[in-house]
């Protein structure tokens, strides 16, 4: 199945995958070459130009920009992976449950989803992040809480007609277990949409994390996080435009990579 999906990927999707893999690889390799301390300050070397020792220069506290960027990329990828995995799991299981069970359960889950949907995502994330400022867990919970609804809606809409269709009905009458039916009939129908949603969701969670960092409502300094780095470096734009542009470009590349990977047609 994986092979088929790889074959169907468009050039745009390959480009996206390549960008992401390149970013991840360099983020993981950087500590191996002695760039593993994102918070180590050398105040006498603030805004040092690029050199063999500091390939991307240093920031206002003389911290190694390469190490900081690598740490930020690892953090963003980790968070987006966590958020996408848990929100996809939650959304798919609730969506299948809502479509497959009694009307009452469907109504209850639908009510919860509509409640979440009634607030713009970023407002909800800011509210939840406000519960415990600077906490990675709260950020993760908030973002996952806003993301699962998308999966739920798509999965529920796809599965609902399937449940009453002849394939599932006969499979049920033949006595196959629910897990088998899910794997054989439901997963193939929803997997394409779920993967697209997952790529978009990863981009959204990276953006949300950077946005909360940017308004000082997310993680706290000195954490190397893209949004925080941008807002911290902005006052020095005249002295070090080049340093400010680095986190901007990395953020852009990450989101672009995921958007391309999602393979949007529009």
């Amino acid at each position: 199945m994986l092979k088929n999906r790889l074959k169907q990927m468009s050039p745009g999707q390959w480009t996206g995958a390549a960008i992401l893999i390149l970013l991840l690889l360099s983020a993981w390799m950087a500590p191996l070459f002695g760039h593993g301390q994102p918070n180590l300050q050398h105040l006498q070397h603030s805004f040092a130009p690029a050199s063999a020792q500091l390939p991307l220069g240093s920031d206002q506290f003389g911290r190694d920009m390469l190490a900081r960027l690598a740490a930020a990329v690892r953090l963003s990828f980790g968070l987006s992976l966590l958020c996408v995995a848990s929100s996809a799991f939650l959304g798919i299981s609730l969506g299948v449950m809502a479509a497959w069970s009694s009307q009452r359960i469907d109504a209850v889950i639908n009510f919860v989803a509509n409640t979440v949907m009634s607030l713009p995502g970023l407002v909800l994330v800011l509210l939840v992040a406000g519960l415990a400022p600077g906490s990675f867990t709260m950020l993760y919970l908030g973002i996952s809480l806003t993301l699962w609804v998308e999966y739920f809606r798509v999965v529920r809409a796809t599965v609902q007609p399937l449940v009453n269709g002849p394939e599932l009905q006969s499979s049920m009458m033949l006595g196959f277990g629910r897990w088998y039916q899910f794997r054989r009939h439901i997963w193939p129908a929803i997997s394409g949409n779920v993967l697209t949603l997952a790529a978009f969701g990863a981009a959204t969670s990276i953006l949300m994390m950077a946005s909360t960092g940017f308004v000082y409502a997310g993680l706290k300094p000195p954490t190397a996080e893209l949004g925080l780095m941008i807002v911290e470096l902005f006052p020095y734009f005249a002295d070090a435009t080049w340093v400010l542009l680095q986190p901007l470009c990395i953020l852009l590349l990450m989101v672009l990579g995921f958007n391309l990977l999602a393979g949007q047609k529009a």
Partner: protein
Amino acid sequence: MKGILIKRLVQLLMMAWSVGTITFILSRMLPGDMAYRIAAGRYGDDAVTAAAASAVRQELGLNDPVWLQYLHWLGELLQCNLGSSLVSGNPITAELQHQLGYTLILAAAAILLSAVIALPLGLICGFQANKWIDRCGLLISTFLRSQPVFCLGLILILLFSLQLKWFPVAGFDSLPHLFLPALTLALSLAALSSRVIRNSTLRVIRSDYYLFSRIKGLSRQQTFRRHGIRNIALPVVAFMGIQLVGLIEGVIMVESLFAWPGIGHGLSHAVFSRDIPMLQGTALTCGVLFVVINTLVDGCCYLLDPRSKMTC
């Protein structure tokens, strides 16, 4: 139409309930004794005594069980009694009125500007589908969509106010102050909506009824006026409802970036300074804005498409 309104009203109530609940939990989680904190806010830090704190506790019912306090909290919310800010001490409703005006100006300017950008671009790309101008449009839109709104804003600030010095960096005095924030929001909105307009245009001009109206002898303009506009507009207006989330999130970021004294600015500052009544008020206002504009979009769709009158 009645069905739509009832659905939106339920949505509004659920939104208020969830905001109220989260902020209630938040207020329980603040460190320190609530009675002492409120007493300090009322009588000044020096005048806080155990007697004053216990008087406050008696008066506000802070000794009641948690569920009773929760009901009390929601009751106050239902009466639109939002309390006053922990930071400035002003009543929340007064602050919100002040901020809402600025936010509405910004949002209206952004929507208008994005329509000015996206409509011609989307139509041209649709009529010239898969030619070079369409490809350029796709490239620019993908590029704009791949960055958060605040990156776009930063780039515009760097370019227009720091290099060219055409517009002020931040603030809210006059019309030039409005331009950069509105342009930032408008570009991020237009990046997506221009593609939706393009796809909708392409679908309409390739349809049978469009071809038929040309065959029966109508000129290009007549065909576009009679059969094009309305059919193109319907999916675009429906899409605007989805894009609203982006608008409100964008408002939060852009206001923080440009120090525009609106709701979003208030919200992010309230989160930062843990000003719970303010947080509740601003989040509620964002939610109300969201629901109200959504209702307007629903209404527009209803007016544009007579078919929907039969289902409602």
